């Protein structure tokens, strides 16, 4: 789960990491009240789970009430890289002397947490120069390590002291909240030599959420995603018109790749998990029926232990119950494939022996309908 900037900053504040004064709203009425409390000038920041907001105009300075009336609605409507504005943070401007970069992340290759820091922040991590990289095991950062990192960044005196404190607190957040990433970029040294987190990005380990009820309030899932999760499925909604369903994340990703290679446009990634039963497939079809853009369904099931007839039963039931009336292009490997084909004769589900054939048929059919 990726926290929005204001959510990450509220964690920072809880742990004593300094942040600028700011207020968050979801409509302009509240925004106006926030503006009055804060006082001009300030920065209007779109709250969305994506990088590159500044370049896209989703973060803008605001000098007075006239500007506010124009910019607030404009930023509220922004869509950056497919992500919509979820809320708006109004934040006091800071007198920045120097921008730094600081993050703690789960280093998968090394299987430990790792600090990345730089005396030159404020740009995306790929462009951060002079990166200082320091492995810290399960995430704990002692004062000595923090001081070393700060000195390597070129900090001294008051900013160094403050940095040491901030890094240790960021490490505490990472450990206690089970984050995969906790990033402050930029971390700014201000005119008075105080150090403040001007932005925040925190990604929490989804699998650890059962231990973090206190973070549930930040969780935002679409109705469909929530339903998918309840069934033990993984769902990612996409822009195309062919729903892609299969058992196993790798297999569904692979199907998505092949469909795209053939000019098809996936409407979703739906992994029903390793097994496949009549119930799971029926539930998957029910979910898909609620996605408006879907014109066809591509199914790739590696059966193995499962009989394909149990899956065929689900399709027939879904048509009978009028859950779906879409064409289905299915590849099901496993026992009793011939019997399944027989069962599905006359229905809108076509069964194929290979996924390549199923994809070809699906793409041709979608092109026919425009």
């Amino acid at each position: 789960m990726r926290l929005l900037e204001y959510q990450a900053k509220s964690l920072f504040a809880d742990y004593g990491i300094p942040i600028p004064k700011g207020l968050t709203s979801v409509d302009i009425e509240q925004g106006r009240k926030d503006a009055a409390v804060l006082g001009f000038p300030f920065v209007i920041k779109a709250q969305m789970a994506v990088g590159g907001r500044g370049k896209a105009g989703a973060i803008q300075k605001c000098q007075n009430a006239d500007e506010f009336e124009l910019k607030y609605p404009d930023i509220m409507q922004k869509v950056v890289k497919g992500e919509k504005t979820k809320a708006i943070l109004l934040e006091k401007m800071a007198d920045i002397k120097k921008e730094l970069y600081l993050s703690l992340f789960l280093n998968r290759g090394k299987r430990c947490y790792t600090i990345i820091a730089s005396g030159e922040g404020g740009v995306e991590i790929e462009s951060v120069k002079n990166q200082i990289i320091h492995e810290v095991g399960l995430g704990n950062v002692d004062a000595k390590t923090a001081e070393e990192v700060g000195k390597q960044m070129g900090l001294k005196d008051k900013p160094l002291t403050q940095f040491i404190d901030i890094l240790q607190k960021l490490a505490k957040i990472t450990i206690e909240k089970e984050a995969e990433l906790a990033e402050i970029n930029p971390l700014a040294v201000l005119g008075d030599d105080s150090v403040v987190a001007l932005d925040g990005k925190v990604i929490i380990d989804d699998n650890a959420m059962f231990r973090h009820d206190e973070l549930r309030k930040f969780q935002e899932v679409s109705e469909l995603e929530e339903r998918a999760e309840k069934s033990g499925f993984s769902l990612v909604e996409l822009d195309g018109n062919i729903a892609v369903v299969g058992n196993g994340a790798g297999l569904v990703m692979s199907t998505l790749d092949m469909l795209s290679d053939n000019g098809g446009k996936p409407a979703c990634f739906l992994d029903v998990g390793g097994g496949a039963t009549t119930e799971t497939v029926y539930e998957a079809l029910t979910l898909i029926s609620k996605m408006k853009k879907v014109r066809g369904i591509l199914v790739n099931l590696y059966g193995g232990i499962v009989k394909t007839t149990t899956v065929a039963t689900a399709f027939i039931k879904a048509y009978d119950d009028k859950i779906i009336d879409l064409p289905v292009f299915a590849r099901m490997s496993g026992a009793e494939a011939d019997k399944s084909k027989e069962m599905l004769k006359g229905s809108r589900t076509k069964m194929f022996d290979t996924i390549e054939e199923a994809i070809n048929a699906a793409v041709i059919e979608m092109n026919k309908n425009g």
Partner: protein
Amino acid sequence: MVDLFELLIGKEGDKDYKKKPVIVQGITGKFGAFHTQQMLAYGTNVVAGVTPGKGGQKHAGVPIYETMNEAVSATGAKISIIFVPAKFFLSAAVEALESGIKLLIAIPEHVPVKDALTIVDLAKKKDAIVVGPNTPGIIIPGIIKIGIMPASPFKEGRIAVISRSGTLMYEVSHNLSVANFGQSICFGIGGDPINGAPLIQAFDTIRNGANIDGIVVVGEIGGDAEEMLAQHIIDTKFDKPVVAYIAGRAAPKEKRMGHAGAIVYGNYGSAESKVSMYAKANVPVAKRPAEVPMLLAGKFEKGRIK
């Protein structure tokens, strides 16, 4: 480090050669119970199960114990497979490693990263191999199956398959079997961000196996395991044919694609990055699972001409 093949097969003359005893943790759960029967049917020597509160009972003829300590002392098993829900994984895995288990197959999905890191640390101290979490397990066709994979895709042979994905491991192995490339071992490392045995370690535990003519690596987007493996292949001058597959080229960035580990941040974890590193290591990457045997055949062909 412990030798994987010795653990799984043993040496000729061993009393339990090709019959290495296996313990099932969580044997009475729906999933554990079903797959215990499947493993027994394959010929795996499941000797004990553990479910607290059900000690003294039996499942499919297999005696159940209260604790791993009891199960291990009664059977001498060095291999265990865990089926408990993710929340209980940490304590089950600690119990297994503390009881002397040397090969732990961790089936559960949704294990928190922190718990996985804790087990990785403990396994190092205990000199044990942890496979998973979120793995289908390991199979040596014709000899032993410790996992949840169906038996049908696999055939005895001389190709090793290492996979980050379950069903893709079945799919690719099935394609290999049909093309007459049987498998000497299929090793599911798991779809999580933290693997007990990451790609490189899995590769190293099998690279010197007696029955391995070539290796197929089934990967996916996320992390940098494939990049590290490619560099490792170059550095260690591994000269047997290696062919790869990578799922997730068409996946959007910053979206978790089913597996906890399958997520791209910027260029970190992208398919392009993996393909270009593999190219440097002279490892061809298949566009689809069905292409894997063709690329492998091409590699063997080249080897013969050279």
